[in-house]
């Protein structure tokens, strides 16, 4: 259904995280939403910051933070401007 072009986002699945995943005990839907800005816009990063800013950080590094939050990465859609992580608790 997609018409892949050069800028098409790319999906990577972490199969290991999906094994034996069971959400029978999920009961609290309402989410906690945190948005942290480090600059006013993607093209206004502070001097000295890596060219791609937060997108230069490896997925493995984010996983250390997500461990503190009690989330696992199921899959990632990487694109030029956004990396979208689908997570499970």
């Amino acid at each position, binding site marked *: 259904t997609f018409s892949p072009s050069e*800028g098409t986002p790319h999906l990577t699945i972490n199969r290991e995280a999906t094994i034996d995943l069971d959400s029978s005990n999920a*009961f*609290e839907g309402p*989410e906690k939403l945190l948005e942290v800005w480090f600059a*006013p816009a993607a093209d206004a990063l502070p001097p000295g910051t890596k060219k791609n800013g937060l997108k230069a*950080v490896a997925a493995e590094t*984010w996983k250390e933070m997500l461990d503190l939050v009690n989330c696992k990465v199921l899959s990632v859609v990487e694109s*030029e401007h956004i990396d979208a992580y689908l997570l499970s*608790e």
Partner: protein
Amino acid sequence: SSMFVFPHKLILKTCGTTTLLLGLRRMLRIAAMEAKFPFDNTDSVEDIKTAATPYRVFYSRKNFLFPDKQHGPHRSWKHEVKFLDDMFAGGSAYMVGKMNGDHWYLYLTSPNTTLTPPRTPENERSPTETKILKIPSISAYTVSQRGLESDDETLEVLMTDLDQENAKQFYLEHASAVAEGKYSDRAQRARKEAANSLGDLSEAMMNSTLSGTTAGSANEEKFDVFSQTSSENGIYTPEDEALFPEDLSTEGHALGTVVSEACGLSDVYPTSRYPDARVDAYLFTPCGFSANGVIPAPDQAGAATHYFTVHVTPEAQCSYASFETNVPGRQTGRETCEVIEHVVNIFKPGRFSVTLFEAKSDTFEARELGLVAEQSAETAKKALVRSAKMEKIRGYRRVDRIVHELDGYDLVFRYYERE
């Protein structure tokens, strides 16, 4: 749960009893260590306490269904505000909506203007693209740059009391049946196409090669995509992957895609209008659904990419669904209320709230310096018409409408109940 990483900001949205705020310090440290964002709380980046200085922080949530089951700083809004106040200066905490009903919490800090670099000529936007009021005294510093991505707007629809008959589509059992019907059709078509293109290979041989349906035999064995080929823990074996694109190779993802299309979510931002859109969806066992959408702006190379995210808990005793997007209303070719109606029609909630966060084009400082660009009558009229349309969501009665003018943003909270 979902996370979105942009060059300049990170959005983390987590359900259940996750301890989101306990990850915040590590996030700030990673931003300083790995992405080299500036920090001012230690002398050296090696110091374990080093934390990048955020430009701005937003934390929000709806009231929990089971607050006493939360952990750590999430035990209460008061705990969360204290946690954030201990980390950031100048934060403000709000509660929006009924105290004795559905309400919504928001914490935000003011923009940290010490972090705003003077604009270099090459990334200066052309005057026609944004309203630029050059302030000679502040070198190359333009009002439009202050805290504003272009089209910085976030819409969130938080739904509870979902119609239970409709919510069945977010259960594995139901979705497997839908998929089975759909993929066995597709498998049949794939087989025919392969037979035609291979020419001399007869269809019978093709059937045996694909070890699927034993076509025409007395005890015809239906080509069941899931039980036939997936190993005991539900993970596909290589033979399946011929049927699914390389990256839809777990049951949860494959069924998530089936549900995303069947329930109409994929049509909120259709690939006919957003050819490079990508939806990553997952159906949990035994139920529950999550999806992220990455929506590159159509036919504007290099223009911003936007996202949407959906999380669904279908069980009757705690039913909930959320939809969030920053795709600008004017880009979709539809009114914001039409997007809301589309989403609400998918989940059929008994009650829902809508928060619309819109960056204001005239900034706080611009107003102070008396440099506010007169908002054209046309823009004001459009905003009024757009707002009026939000009052009528088919099948629902708008109960509350609460407006907050925050530093740099207008926040409009609306609450609806089924008629």
